[in-house]
């Protein structure tokens, strides 16, 4: 428990340092409008990251969740448009179920054929993307066709302020959805045997089996939950940007994995926490956001994300090796 706290403390310190640095370089960072947009940018990536966190604690990795998100949101919205259905609850359930099913497919292959998760999810990502584009087409559902209820849902703000230039900016209410999901995942990981089994399995699969962990259930749990969160986050994203694009989230897996690793999860499995992951996501989003504020080209942002992955992985690997010695 001591280390549990100290890891988060280290990440929080990194976050603090980065914040101060960014604030010094660019005072516009502290503007309310910017902070609100920062909070908004955390929501979707954060929910996805929580799913990836589960998988990484179990010792696996998932690069298919952006494809799952895109599939879930596009299938749901296209179906709504086709049926002329408008609503919020049912579509979100549908998107989540699509996510769960795709996650279960990952879990099935990984468990049944004892395959490496990276390869499996690379494969399923490609299959899912291909199927969605091939079967449903590539056209983007724009605001004019987007179901109104979804748009209205995504527009909800907790509070609004009027910026100096006269524009009103709001703090999205979706942040509450994110926080609620984070709390649930935290409770599962920390206070249920299902969650502890994920840590045990990630720590040593063979010992977990001997201790009586239902390893198949554990694998299905992490991949299905990650799929659920990906599907949900996909439709949430869609309702927040009033658009459904089947090509959305291309390359996002790297950002999210970077955030999770930055948040202290071990690439070897067995370690990671919700709080750490949330701080990791916040740090990553903030860095990217600041690069935009500083008008750094998006291509260069890729360079930064890559460097964050390597640096964060190096630090956690170094930490884990030191523990083993």
């Amino acid at each position, binding site marked *: 428990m001591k280390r549990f706290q100290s890891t988060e403390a280290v990440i929080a310190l990194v976050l603090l340092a980065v914040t101060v640095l960014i604030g010094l370089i660019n005072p516009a960072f502290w503007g309310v409008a910017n902070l609100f947009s920062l909070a908004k940018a955390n929501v979707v990536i954060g929910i996805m990251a929580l799913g990836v966190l589960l998988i990484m604690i179990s010792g696996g990795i998932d690069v298919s969740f952006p494809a799952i998100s895109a599939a879930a949101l596009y299938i749901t919205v296209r179906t709504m448009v086709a049926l002329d259905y408008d609503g919020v609850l049912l579509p979100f359930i549908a998107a989540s179920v699509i996510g769960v099913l795709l996650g279960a497919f990952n879990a099935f292959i990984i468990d049944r054929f004892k395959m490496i998760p990276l390869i499996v999810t690379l494969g399923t990502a490609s299959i899912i993307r291909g199927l969605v584009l091939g079967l449903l087409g590539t056209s983007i559902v724009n605001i004019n066709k987007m179901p109104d209820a979804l748009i209205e849902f995504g527009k909800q703000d907790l509070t609004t302020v009027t910026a100096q230039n006269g524009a009103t900016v709001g703090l999205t209410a979706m942040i509450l959805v994110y926080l609620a999901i984070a709390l649930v995942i935290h409770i599962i990981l920390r*206070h*249920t*045997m299902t969650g*502890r089994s994920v*840590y045990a399995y990630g720590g040593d699969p063979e010992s977990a089996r001997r201790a009586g962990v239902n390893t198949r259930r554990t694998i299905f749990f992490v991949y299905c939950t990650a799929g659920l969160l990906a599907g949900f986050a996909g439709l949430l994203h869609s309702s927040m940007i009033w658009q459904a694009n089947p090509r959305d989230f291309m390359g996002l897996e790297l950002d999210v994995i970077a955030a999770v690793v930055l948040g202290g999860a*071990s690439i070897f499995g067995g370690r990671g926490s919700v709080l750490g992951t949330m701080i990791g996501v916040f740090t990553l989003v903030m860095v990217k956001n600041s690069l935009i504020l500083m008008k750094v080209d998006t291509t260069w942002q890729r360079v930064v994300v890559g460097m964050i992955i390597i640096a964060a992985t190096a630090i956690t690997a170094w930490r884990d090796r030191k523990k083993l010695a």
Partner: protein
Amino acid sequence: MSEYLIELKNISKRFGGVRALDGVSICIRPGEIHCLAGENGSGKSTVIKVMSGIYTPEEGEILIDGTAVSRLDPIMAVQKGVQVIYQDFSLFGNLTVAENLALNTYLLEGRSRMDWPRAREMAREVLARLDVEIDIDAEVETLPTSGKQIVAIARALLARARLIVMDEPTTALTGHEVDALFGIVRDLQKQGIAVLFVSHKMREMLEISERLTVFRNGKKVAEGAMSEFDEPAITRAMTGLELDDEPYEPEIPADAAPALEVEGLTVSGSVDDVSLTLRPGEIVGISGLIGSGRTELARALFGMENASARRFRVAGKDVLPRSVQEAISLGIAYVPEDRLSEGLFLTQSIERNMVVSILDRLRRGLFLDRDAMRGKTEEMFAAMQIAAPSPETAVGNLSGGNAQRVMLGRWLLTGAKVLILNGPTVGVDVGSKAKIHHIIRDLAREEGVAVLMISDDVPELTGNCNRIHVMHEGRFVGAFSGAEMTEDAINDSLKALK
């Protein structure tokens, strides 16, 4: 109530064509400290797995508390109180002591909620029962081996163990830790819990066990109260051989120059100012615990560590090898501890594995001289008495003893004059072991090779070496030769180390 807690009667178990267990019986009384002894491959591990329900025997009967159990499965075994502590402990390094202790119980109880306060309380209670102090909030991977072992024992206790089977429990422990473990085991005994040690370390077993069962080649060859046995009797039972006790006496010409002379060898953090002289024909042993720096010493002599030395004289030259290639060209050879990961190419043939060390000498122009390759291999294949259909056989298909002889052959092909052996018979069966010892002694005596032998197996050292150094924390802390070089003396010296 039956006299015995668990009885195995006439158990037989086959794997393919191999009879791993051939009508063996073993019985354990409640609260008894029992030792199951046997060499590698004698059927010890198989019988543990029968007891814990992992293997179902083809023949024989298992009685628990005097009642026959028709099909023992792992869950039933646990319910009946049989707990096995494997060498790797099956603990979760990433979780705390408390959680490691509670996890099995919670899973067994089919709980869905992780009750942290109860977990910590359970951990505190069970550790108090063992009278040990371990930080229950520490992550298990931060504990030393002895600490992990205690956690594993505590976990077995929490599972209401009545019989705790411990597989080679003293392998990675220091002398003091072994004493502490024995203290715990005696406490367990007072609480009515039986302990079955599975081991081949006779001296320790003589100290603690009350009864002994000895296996050899899947058969029970001896059993009885420990007081009826002494060490030679147990060894005889284990090996079936009257072991040749004659110590190795090299014949060294008085004027012979040392094959290797090292003064003040230091590797930062592991070897501290070690001086060593090997004369041709000598077999010098190094005894020491894991982590004593003995492996680093061997690697340093072979140019694999960043070492420094005041003097390093080999093959008549003052030069400290800085790379493996350089060490080989100076006539040094090293057979590593873990031949599977550090030495052999398992998917490749015996021939390729052997000649890999002398490829540059087998070159003809741009190509390899296949005839020379074959000739050299055939020669060594015969000399090492490798039991395989041909030199084409993949090394991965060989037994431990044969694989080790391939390794020896490889280095002898280099014409090495200094041979460093690290654990030369780890995982090798008895017959093969004697053969390897014989080969090593012949090499020293007849070819004048100077051998440095590092081993955990004290009898192996006393039986084959003419001098032995005890190493601890990077230094030589004791030297034995002649009449003083007895197993007792070396074991005592090892036990005194912390």
